[in-house]
């Protein structure tokens, strides 16, 4: 008994020393990367810029006055991301901790000319960022985006993420592309395409990062091509079923039938779409069923007080959406970019048909037929009745 006690006491005393604490790193030994930007250096190598959180002083914290913390950006050029990251941590004097990274920015120049897989391997493999990190394409130099002072959040990475979220839910012009999505796309054997939000720096003060479109990313090349303009972005997202909400503006037409400068606005609160692919004369025929629910956001020239007027309003709306959908579909068909995952659908549901199309799906897609079935339901007109704020004089009353 005594030997057992002595032995266990000895082991217990040695254990902490033996442990070596290889992975022991105080919080203050890490440099927490909040956002990273990748550019293409003039010589074709990778330029990595990391934004590292710099903790504020505790006095400022307890005083409660000034904003705590700031950040610093460090850059390095290298052949691989791993090497660049190691160099940066050498310069910083602390190990880089990637697990709190919010946003990854790739410059357009880089993404057009080099495969995105070159950099993604590092981020996926290492004990690094969560799969929920958002990816953006930056116009111009990606590193300069990290210089922007965030408006309310603590770092620009956080701000970009929230901007993307809000734009997606309020305007319907941005989708969310995460590292996980990219990993899945990269592993898919057949060629796929997806959309990445594209940001640019605004002019004027304060400098903001704005989402100005969606770039098309193709796999297996891993490069991007021309962006989809902001005006068509909501419709492309509707086609993908990723439209979460947004405003649809309908220009008013005056007595003469020409636009008179006013517009009505309709707020979409939910949208669901279903894609189906069938074969017509050997070519794919894509059919979208789009169901939208929303409320009137602004009435400037329409009325929905009667059943007729309601129907007319919804028809106008439907027409507007249909035009948008057809325009966007034409655009992506011309680009041969199947961002609506019609190919995936065909592969899943019609494997035999898919076999005949799969050799060159991009071509087949560009030749595909398109049909949209749009159903819109207006739930309410808000607090006011269904007529404009200033009621235009009706013809009879004159």
């Amino acid at each position, binding site marked *: 008994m005594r030997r057992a006690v002595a032995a266990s006491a000895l082991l217990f005393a040695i254990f902490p020393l033996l442990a070596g604490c*290889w*992975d022991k790193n105080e919080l203050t030994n890490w440099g927490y990367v909040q956002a990273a930007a990748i550019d293409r250096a003039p010589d074709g190598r990778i330029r990595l810029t990391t934004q590292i959180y710099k903790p504020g002083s505790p006095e400022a914290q307890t005083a409660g006055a000034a904003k705590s913390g700031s950040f610093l950006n460090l850059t390095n050029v290298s052949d691989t991301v791993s090497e660049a990251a190691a160099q940066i941590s050498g310069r910083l004097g602390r190990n880089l901790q990637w697990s709190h990274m919010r946003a990854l920015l790739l410059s357009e120049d880089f993404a057009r000319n080099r495969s995105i897989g070159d950099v993604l391997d590092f981020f996926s493999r290492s004990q690094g960022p969560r*799969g929920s990190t958002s990816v953006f394409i930056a116009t111009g130099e990606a590193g300069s985006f990290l210089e922007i002072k965030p408006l309310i959040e603590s770092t620009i990475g956080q701000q970009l993420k929230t901007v993307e979220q809000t734009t997606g839910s309020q305007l319907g012009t941005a989708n969310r592309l*995460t590292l996980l999505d990219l990993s899945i796309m990269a*592993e*898919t*054997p057949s060629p796929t395409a997806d959309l990445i939000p594209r940001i640019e720096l605004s002019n004027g003060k304060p400098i903001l990062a704005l989402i100005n479109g969606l770039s098309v990313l193709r796999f297996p090349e891993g490069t991007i091509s021309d962006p989809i303009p902001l005006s068509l972005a909501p419709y492309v997202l509707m086609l993908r079923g990723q439209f979460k909400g947004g405003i649809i503006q309908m220009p008013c037409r005056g007595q003469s039938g020409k636009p008179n400068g006013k517009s009505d606005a309709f707020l979409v609160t939910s949208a669901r779409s279903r894609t189906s692919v069938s074969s017509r004369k050997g070519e794919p025929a894509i059919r979208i069923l789009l169901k939208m629910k929303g409320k009137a956001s602004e009435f400037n020239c329409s009325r929905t007080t009667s059943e007729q007027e309601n129907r007319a309003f919804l028809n106008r709306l439907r027409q507007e959406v249909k035009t948008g959908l057809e325009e966007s579909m034409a655009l992506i068909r011309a680009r041969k970019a199947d961002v609506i995952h019609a190919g*995936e659908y065909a*592969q899943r549901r019609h*494997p035999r048909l898919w076999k005949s199309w799969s050799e060159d799906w991009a071509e087949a897609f560009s030749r595909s037929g398109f049909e949209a079935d749009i159903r819109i339901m207006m739930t309410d007109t808000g607090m006011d009745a269904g007529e404009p704020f200033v009621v235009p004089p009706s013809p009879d009353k004159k």
Partner: protein
Amino acid sequence: MRDSSSLTANQLGSLLIAASMGSAIVYIPAPLAQAAGNGSWLSVLAAYLFGLAMLGGILYLYRRHGKEGGLFGCCRQLLGRVAGPAVLVPVVGMLFFAIPAIVAGIGDFFVSGMMPRTPPYIFCSFSLAVSALTAKAGSKITARLFVMLVPVMVVFSLAVLILALPLYDWGRLLPIADKGIKPVLHGLLIAGGFPFGEVFLFLAFLPYASKEQEKLLPGRLIRAFTITGVLMFLAAICSTAAFGAAAGHFNYSLYTLASNIGGSGSSQRVEAVIGMALILGSYMKATVYLLILNRIMAQLLGAKDESAFIFPIALVCVMLSLTLFANPADFLFQVYTVWPCTVLGIGCGLTLLLVVLSWLRGNPGSQERKNAA
């Protein structure tokens, strides 16, 4: 009063879950997805049915041979005094591979994920030390402990699968068996060996069952095995739904699933807890196998002290866990190719042989009754 060294049917059921689900829940369905693509869940289903057949076989053997129906007892009775023990030597060798493999898996998991700089021998030695201490305390105490720990593992795994609902895109499951039927069969081979086929080893534990609960035993064991099967099945389906074609790309499916939960919500970062729960499973499986190996060796070598071999076996396994696998590719090859074949060939073959022999020989119980009458 209940015999203090016998286990209730529930306890045996928990041990069965620990032994079959333990380390598998960490890996499945990654290797299967690599082999069979979208059809990994088909492989799991088929392997589960196969394992059920094996379970039925060992239950049959137990019913025939009663208390003497342990692995060693059955072999000796049916194959004779020399051939019986001789046939168990390969099984001993298999267990000497399995335990280091499980423990090396724990080490790999931590080293690749959460604590990359720590040398793997730390994880291997500590987990095996705790396993050995647990096994040394006896099968009764181990069973009591595991009845508490197994629900933790099951609940956490289920919680991950449920919390990850937003990640699932059920369309990714189509087309079923996108790689064809042959890869599904390949997946069946892998899953049949690891983990479902290993159930034959559980025969060594059945003699511990208490007499009063004999009637309940088959039902409870089948229920336990089904829980494992269902969880594996769900893991396979949910990984495919979440990751699609990338399911084979991630080494640790459930862990990666957990790390993607939440996005920017409040249930972020739950993967550490899941990681711990999964490693708990591996520890439990290692302990159960230690107990089985100890029992077989004790019976083979005729030792008086039932738990004499535990610490020596544990020491040998620690050494083996550091030297068996030269590199990650070697580990993959040995665990997912060599091991399933061994399990199916030796283990399931042995079981089949014993079942057939037992059936041919008739009921030994009835023989004795005839002699006594």
